[in-house]
């Protein structure tokens, strides 16, 4: 018996400006799809009452930290789960405050769909633009602009159309192509799960219908096979001679697929071999597809360790000691050009120095400006010199081999995120 039929898993986030109703919308989605259980509901009812509210404050469903509840804002991402009988959803509720943009980036990096909220009264705000820019930058394939709080503008179609036109002008500038618009009221529930009575002029899908129909696969084009080695398995079990020569290369298929018998190249060494076997937990598989965690065995004895990458011989990534990337700076301490940072890319790490900051973008005008330093939440084009080569693709072609994080070794904090733009050999 399988109660839940499997249509895969969709990860999405809600984002947008402060107080536009992101957390309330998620609460509404969970509430109207009956995904909130009685005890959770009675707990937030009690809390709402204690805070002197008349209705249940649905944002309390995701604003789980003490500090968030005290201030009525979201500080860090909350993850919530529900399923509708056909698919499982992982929701990330991102904070709207500019100060917490890095937490929004965390949520966006794993999402396949973004709901960008706009307060119908306020229209498109700087933070709406920033989040749209970031969602687009990290390559979220599906954007839905939800014009919220329609109850406060008399469910006016004219207001909805104004905001839509305004947003489209900005989206065009950014090169965002796929974007949908939906009017709703997270507070009252119109067009979230139920259509409600107040928006008769809107004949598109409800938000829930959009979520159920969105493709779960992150990408719709074929990507080359990329397998960063995470761990090498050498059991050397003296009681089992069969395992004596066992060398399993463990990792997750970042992109593409692989079959037994395929010709592969190991990078950075450049040596070649054939796939002898694919295993999961000691059991054989014929094939492994994107996002699957497996163990590869090769026909030749080759020295391979963590940080190496196994790829198909007919499609190699670029091996380079210099990368150009769009960088989001995430730390309070500004990027210091004089310092050496650590870059983690796939399972590799290398020391890195800034070679140049090409430009910094002004979120409001989208203008590119010269910059000497990067402050928290800045988005900029940066080129790095690397101590060790990385095995890269452009982020637009391949998320798994196009993304990296920047680590400050003195604190071990993750201070930046990079998306490789063009490749220099």
């Amino acid at each position, binding site marked *: *018996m*399988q*109660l*839940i039929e*499997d249509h*895969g*898993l969709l990860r999405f986030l809600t984002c947008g400006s402060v107080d536009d109703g992101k957390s309330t919308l998620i609460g509404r989605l969970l509430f109207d799809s009956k995904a909130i*259980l009685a*005890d*959770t509901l009675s*707990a937030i009812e009690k*809390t709402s009452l204690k805070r002197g509210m008349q209705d249940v404050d649905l944002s309390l469903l995701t604003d*789980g*930290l*003490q*500090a968030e*509840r005290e201030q009525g804002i979201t500080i*860090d*991402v*909350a*993850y*919530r*789960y529900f*399923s509708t009988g056909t698919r499982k959803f*992982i929701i990330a509720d991102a904070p709207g405050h500019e100060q917490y943009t890095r*937490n929004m980036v*965390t949520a966006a*990096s*794993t999402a396949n769909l973004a709901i960008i909220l706009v307060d119908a009264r306020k229209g498109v705000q700087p933070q709406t633009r920033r989040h749209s820019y970031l969602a687009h930058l990290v390559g979220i394939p*599906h954007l839905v602009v939800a014009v919220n709080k329609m109850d406060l503008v008399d469910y006016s179609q004219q207001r909805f159309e104004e905001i839509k036109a305004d947003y489209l002008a900005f989206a065009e500038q950014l090169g965002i192509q*796929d974007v*949908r618009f939906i009017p709703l009221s997270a507070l009252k529930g119109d067009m979230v799960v139920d259509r409600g009575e107040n928006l008769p002029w809107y004949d598109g899908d409800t938000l829930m219908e*959009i979520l159920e*129909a969105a*493709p*779960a696969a992150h990408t*719709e084009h074929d990507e080359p096979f990329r397998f960063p080695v*995470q*761990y090498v*398995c050498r059991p050397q*079990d003296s009681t089992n001679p069969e395992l004596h020569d*066992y060398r*399993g290369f*463990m990792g*997750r298929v970042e992109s593409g697929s692989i079959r037994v018998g395929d010709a592969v190249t190991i990078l950075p060494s450049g040596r070649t071999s054939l796939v002898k076997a694919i295993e999961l*937990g000691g059991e054989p598989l014929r094939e492994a*597809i*994107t*996002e*699957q*965690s497996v163990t590869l065995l090769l026909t030749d004895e080759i020295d391979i360790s963590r940080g190496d990458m196994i790829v198909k011989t007919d499609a190699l990534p670029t091996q380079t000691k210099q990368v150009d990337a769009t960088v989001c700076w*995430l730390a309070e301490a500004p990027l210091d050009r004089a310092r050496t940072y650590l870059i*983690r890319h796939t*399972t590799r790490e290398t020391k890195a120095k800034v070679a140049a900051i090409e430009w910094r973008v002004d979120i409001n005008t989208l203008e590119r400006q010269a910059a000497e330093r990067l402050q928290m939440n800045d988005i900029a084009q940066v080129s790095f010199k690397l101590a060790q080569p990385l095995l890269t693709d452009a982020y637009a072609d391949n*998320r*798994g081999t196009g993304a990296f*994080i920047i680590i400050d070794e003195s604190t*071990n*904090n*993750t201070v930046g995120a990079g998306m490789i733009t063009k490749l220099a050999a």
Partner: protein
Amino acid sequence: MMLFNRQQTQLKTLPHLDWLEAEAIHIMREVAGQCSNPVLLFSGGKDSICMLRIAEKAFRPGRFPFPLMHIDTGHNYQEVTDFRDKRAAELGERLIVRSVEDSMKRGTVVLKHENESRNKHQSVTLLEAIEEFGFDACIGGARRDEEKARAKERIMSFRDEFGQWDPKNQRPELWDLYNARSHKGENIRAFPISNWTELDVWQYIQLEGLELPSIYFAHNRPIVRRQGSIVPVTELTPARAGEEIVDLQVRFRTVGDITCTAPVESDADSVEKIIAETATTTITERGATRLDDQASEAAMEQRKKEGYF
């Protein structure tokens, strides 16, 4: 503008349980690859039983690159500790047990009264064990759907020298590029099944045919009803004056410290029946079963700030 056209492509994607499993394996291997001395916390409960299966999938035919460890409050059901020992022996992996009672003897845990729940005091014993063995990462089976503070925690969660979690200042965590770095004395808590729900866990148990301690299944047990909860009558938790002891068919949704874990009324005596019940339950796992979290709105967040899993 056609956006969500399903017919457009026929790309293969993983069914949701396989995806969750693949993600969990990837996280465990990252811990093994990045940390020099990790440990996997194993209690004998259903989540940590899933974690062991994931570790087998991640590392067999090799041995696990970490020992197993249980922080024993001394207040566990015998069925569960027996199961814990049996499972570790079957796997041939090393099991470390550190007990809250030893911390009490050392004077590092002081109970307010004899029968106080030892659940929150596990933090002290855990931190002592981390120091004793020099662990730089603890892999745990906590899930984000369990509790609202857990819903906020990163998959690789940094803890300072005092084991403290700082929820307002978490490391950004992007894509599947995990940062498990820490300096000496600090540590990482890694949560491979963060994205699993209670229903996912039960479906995985069914899919993999995993064995569980018997108290997860419906059985008869003497209980009293106290403030809307079912309280099992044990040596540690005797009936109070005036309470009526009844024999009830129950099962446990979580197995923790006896003094703070309550069963639910149920006749589900198989994994299939439990899945059916879980899919239609109206009460959350913790709401139904944890007598300690109802005390205050921020109980879990507070405990985590003090070093809890």
